């Protein structure tokens, strides 16, 4: 494929992808294979930062999302509760630590634990954690991000253009430094 064509395809792909990326802004980073346990999830500030939306007491979920969760019975309600309590958007509004489900592997087994550790989760906590984990597994889009704005799109397009130019120059010169791999 010619370099100019690659450049055009890259730019087109970026322009298509960017709005989607913005609307899918999430507050946790949990790709497949991640343990799915809250303490091993990276919390990432959303496009709107860590600011509280509204007075910090309202749910970060939309009415539609809340309604959907309500319809899903106890698991859905548990998830709604957890989202309301642990949403990073709401966190700075409170001074007390927010509850998180406990790490799973150390708290539950098929056999009866011989200890009475505090991390041996209660059934309610387990159910809550299941709901949260399920939400993470499913990729909690949410769509609550406020968008990243035209300047960022322009910046990314410029960066893509620069990358394309560098690639062409490197290709013509026939060499370059070893890139670090993402294995």
């Amino acid at each position, binding site marked *: 494929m010619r370099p100019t064509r690659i450049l055009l395809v890259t730019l087109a792909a970026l322009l298509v992808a960017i709005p989607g990326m913005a609307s899918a802004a999430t507050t946790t*980073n949990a790709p497949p*294979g991640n343990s799915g346990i809250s303490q091993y999830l*990276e919390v990432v500030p959303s496009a709107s930062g860590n600011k509280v939306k509204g007075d910090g007491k309202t749910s970060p979920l939309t009415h539609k999302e809340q309604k959907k969760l309500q319809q899903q019975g106890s698991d859905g309600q548990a998830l709604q509760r957890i989202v309301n309590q642990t949403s990073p958007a709401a966190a*700075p509004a409170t001074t007390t630590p927010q509850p998180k489900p406990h790490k*799973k*592997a150390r708290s539950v087994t098929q056999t009866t634990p011989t200890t009475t550790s505090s991390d041996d989760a209660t059934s309610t906590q387990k159910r809550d*954690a299941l709901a949260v984990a399920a939400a993470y*597994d499913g990729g909690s889009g949410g769509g609550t991000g406020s968008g990243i704005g035209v300047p960022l799109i322009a910046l990314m397009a410029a960066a893509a253009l620069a990358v394309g130019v560098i690639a062409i120059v490197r290709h013509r010169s026939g060499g370059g430094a*070893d890139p670090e791999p*993402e294995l």
Partner: protein
Amino acid sequence: MRRLLLGAVAAVILTGALTLPGSASASSSAMLLGFSDDNTTRFGDLTQFPLDLDHLKATRATAMRLMWQWRDIEKVQPASPDVATDPAYPGYDFTRLDRLLRDTVAAGVQPLLTITRAPTWWEAADRPPVSEFYPAGTYKPDAAAYGRFMTAVAKRYSGTFPDPADPGRMLPRVRWWQMWNEPNLYVELTPQWTKSGSTYKETSPGLYKKLLNAGYDAVKSVAADNTVMTAGTAPFGEPWPGGNRMPAARFDRVLFCVSGRTKPVARNCRKDPVKFDVLAHHPYPIGPPGRHAINPDDVVIPDFAKLIDPMKVALKAGNIYPKTKSKPVWATEMSWDTNPPDPGGITASLQAQYTAGAIYVLWRQGVRGLFWWNLRDDAPVNGSYAYSLQSGVYFRGATVAQDTPKPSFVAYRFPFVAYRAYSNFSGHGTTRLWGIAPASGKVQIQRQTRSGWQTIRTATAGSDHVFQVRIAATKGTRLRASQAGEASIDAKVF
């Protein structure tokens, strides 16, 4: 078919491991490999544990991390400091730990003992009621009491303490000690932060420093050649002050008495240095092994510099004792879940590829120890895999004997990676190969062809078993390494 083949390979290897105890101890390997598996050690069927250890050795791992809770041993508060340091104090219940350590050492596996979580009576008097926010055993634990308890434990596992279950014999020696677990998480240590006026101040690093130093002095007083490891820090924290989890890099900077994220500068804390021999961290990943954390103070697989750089600055300033040029760095927990059985996991073959990649990325940064979290998959809980870890290198069978190896089993035994050093737009280019062979010496680099695997090059593994070579290869080429008839995991050039 692939699973059957893996099973056959593992059966052959296991037979060897059973007939030659300790033969898998490749102590000179560049990366010390071990496992951490709570559901096997803390909760599992002890009659199955020797078989678990055989499975561990079959992966060529040489170490097992046993994580234990202080409060699970100390059932009754000792009446005096002298009683607390007595390894035979009847208020301590070592029954299960004794047995696990006995089996571990008898199998030729090196134990790493991690002790965390205090009995409630060693928490500060002002602790709030036990809750989700303030789990029992974590609130401002008494460091002096931890030191006394660790003295008792170190005496018990000094190799000179009579085995109560086997008169005439001694309990085994533990040489590697890890003080606490993930102290940057509120579930392990509280409070993480203290609010003063409108600002938050880091609290957990100071609490942890006292625990670590007390533990260090305790186990070193029993045997000066004991090795003391910091608690592995969890990888992620809330990116704002006052959260439940403190980002690992921030936690360590405060612990080391160093300021500045991008250009760390040591403050003068040499009168009260933090004491350890090995720095540990838990770089649970977010995606492939080469992917960096998004937040600047979170630390995943390729981000160890965020911990090592401030450590070096602190060492130079005398803020860490004993003063050396650098300290070994280990990853004492890490994993990816697989699908099957967890629908949220990655494929078993991708887990294998990532495992080899992770070993390489860790090695490149100077990390020299890795304890994989889970030897065998956890069982589902209430029929769901969402709340347990399926990150083992063995698929879980009805019994341990029925466990079957995943492709990551081979990746752990003989890691091998291939990546493009340079390629042009036609897909031709240079590929860099890296691996850790079973032994030093010649390694055959092989390419998959229609007629099978063909040797295309010979590399030499050094005394640390590492080999590196560059070859010309086209995108999509499948390569592997082989030594003395044993093949590595294969790698596709991408």
